[in-house]
């Protein structure tokens, strides 16, 4: 469903992604690990169409269609969701207002009827409950004064509401306590389905104990330098990234 070929991306005057390849099929969960600054967030931003991320080469298709030519909002409407590493605050705009507007916009683009306020409220309350946020959070400003962990849970709550096809989670596990980690993992696991795929960016094997990935990739200096199954994550946990520096690129990934 998502096919990334030889992707090269520049931010300002620095090339960050230097020929990245990744195939994500429906229903798959891919974990991406890698050192700080290797380009993991850059990949998420590029896929979701953040202005300032210049694609210098390569291609990305979603179900065969060119993803890169779509505006950010159209990518979202096509079912691409990014859970931000650092969710930003929008003071005065309630979570509820924000979510309803987002849902309405997406439903409209998909020629669906808008959700009634009643159904919306019910679904939103249920989603809050699932990520262990009190329903009062719906009335608070988007991320306004939320703790780090609450922000992350709020991202998952939005994902539950929007029902995207491709979910990119950028370090949603960092800064979470053990309980919250399980909450986030359960949120993801509850959404796993043959139609939905996940790209989970993380630094910690711990999350992958809860969310069993089909593939684990190591991103280093703008490229995927190693891919494997979930045992790769364990290996990384024990050995760090240094041993990968001298490895040749994995087969089928150049």
């Amino acid at each position: 469903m998502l096919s990334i070929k030889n992707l090269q991306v520049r931010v300002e005057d620095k090339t960050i992604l230097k020929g990245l390849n990744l195939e994500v099929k429906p229903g798959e969960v891919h974990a991406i690990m890698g050192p700080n600054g290797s380009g993991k967030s850059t990949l998420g931003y590029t896929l979701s169409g953040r202005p300032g991320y210049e694609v210098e080469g390569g291609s990305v298709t979603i179900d065969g269609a060119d993803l890169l030519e779509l505006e950010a909002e159209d990518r979202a409407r096509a079912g691409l969701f990014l859970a931000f590493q650092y969710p930003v605050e929008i003071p005065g705009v309630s979570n509820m207002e924000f979510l309803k507007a987002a849902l309405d916009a997406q439903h409209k683009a998909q020629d669906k009827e808008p959700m009634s306020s009643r159904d919306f409220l019910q679904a939103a309350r249920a989603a809050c409950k699932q990520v262990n946020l009190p329903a009062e959070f719906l009335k608070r400003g988007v991320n306004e004064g939320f703790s780090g962990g609450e922000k992350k849970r709020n991202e998952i709550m939005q994902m539950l509401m929007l029902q995207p096809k491709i979910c990119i989670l950028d370090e949603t596990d960092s800064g979470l306590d053990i309980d919250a980690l399980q909450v986030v993992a359960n949120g993801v696991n509850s959404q796993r389905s043959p139609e939905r795929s996940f790209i989970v960016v993380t630094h910690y094997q711990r999350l992958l104990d809860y969310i069993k990935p089909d593939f684990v990739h190591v991103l280093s200096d703008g490229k995927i330098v190693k891919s494997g199954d979930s045992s790769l994550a364990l290996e990384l946990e024990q050995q760090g990234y240094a041993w990968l520096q001298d490895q040749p690129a994995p087969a089928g990934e150049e």
Partner: protein
Amino acid sequence: MTEQIDRALQREYSAGFVSNIESETFAPGLDEDVIRRISAMKNEPEWMLEWRLKAYRGWLEMEEPTWAHVHYPKINYQDISYYSAPKSMKDKPKSLDEVDPELLATYEKLGIPLLEQQMLAGVAVDAVFDSVSVVTTFREKLAEAGVIFCPISEAIEKYPELVKQYLGSVVPQRDNYFAALNCAVFTDGSFVYIPKGTRCPMELSTYFRINEQNTGQFERTLIIAEEGSYVSYLEGCTAPQRDENQLHAAVVELVALDGAEIKYSTVQNWYPGDENGKGGIYNFVTKRGICHNDAKISWTQVETGSAVTWKYPSCILKGDNSIGEFYSVALTRGMQQADTGTKMIHLGKNTRSTIISKGISAGRSNNSYRGLVRMNSSATGARNYTQCDSLLIGDQCGAHTFPYVESRNPSAIVEHEATTSKVSDEQMFLCQQRGLDPEKAVSMIVNGFCKEVFKELPMEFAVEAGKLLEISLEGSVG
């Protein structure tokens, strides 16, 4: 991203149409004779004419103020026409059936149906078209409660004692240049009187429309709330889209007697001029209220229109324990300039005032907050809290804050907080990533920024104000 937002700000001005109505309009020019003719058109008593002439003579000796942070070419007061009224209004229609349908259609197009059965239940409207009041609705219903709501020209005729007592009592004739001019040439506006202990049964509102070319609108509003009474009043304003600038110099006076409360809301949407600053209304307005013991006046304004705004709704907190509030949203875009704020003059003991100002600047506009908090020596135990927030959209606009504090009583407490923020790329991207288009994103972020002020508006108008911002921001992102 900034570029995108800027494009989203290219707005359509939906109230910019011209109504084809035959009017009687004075030739441009201002002298004593013009004032006599205005007074004659209104069948005014001699004392009113004398009052106008005195103001005019005062005005001649005054100078146009230059301290505000706004720039505009010198106004030639002889180029303006000081009176214009639809011909059909000449024989004073007695009821709505007699009002020119074209006039009614104009208001309907603006979203203000004047037929009572079509109106928002619970809102009475005085519709002022250029220099005259066209119709005032629900008057009988209000009269049952003893409330007087009528054009000020009618009040001068029917309630001269009240008018004589209060007109100019809050804003003296020579208060400032534009107020003095207004005293000399004012044409219409609303008069409200709420009897003792009465809670006005409906929201009152006045809708001002400028239609004729080259005319100024000089409206005059006087609201008197007797002891222990309550009224909520709203004004709205629009004008056609024209290349020439037009002058609007209004005076509003509020009198809140002991224990009375007046809530005064404004949604100002005069034509702002085009992208390059051509055309638009000069909105030079003096609004002031006086609070007696335990009284409260609350000003709420949403200012999105006008080429230049010069406006400082103020409270004189004369009585002990009286309360003044000012909640303001001022949005400027394109080449608009706004210098707006308030004055809170604390005279009584334990008087309290709150100022919440939200300035939003986009395009190449300039948005200034100017406020004075004065604690007189008599204002023992007085308190003020001021919060001024500026939101910048793009990097070519300006936001300025000019807070003045004068405290002559050591027991008085004045608190001031100010912030400046931008609509950030991160916020925009978060919205877009969730499927919102950039326009919706900007208007949502701006609405959130204004929330504290919007919640002060009467329900129906809060929605309207939100929509107005949305329209104002339309096209600001592409």
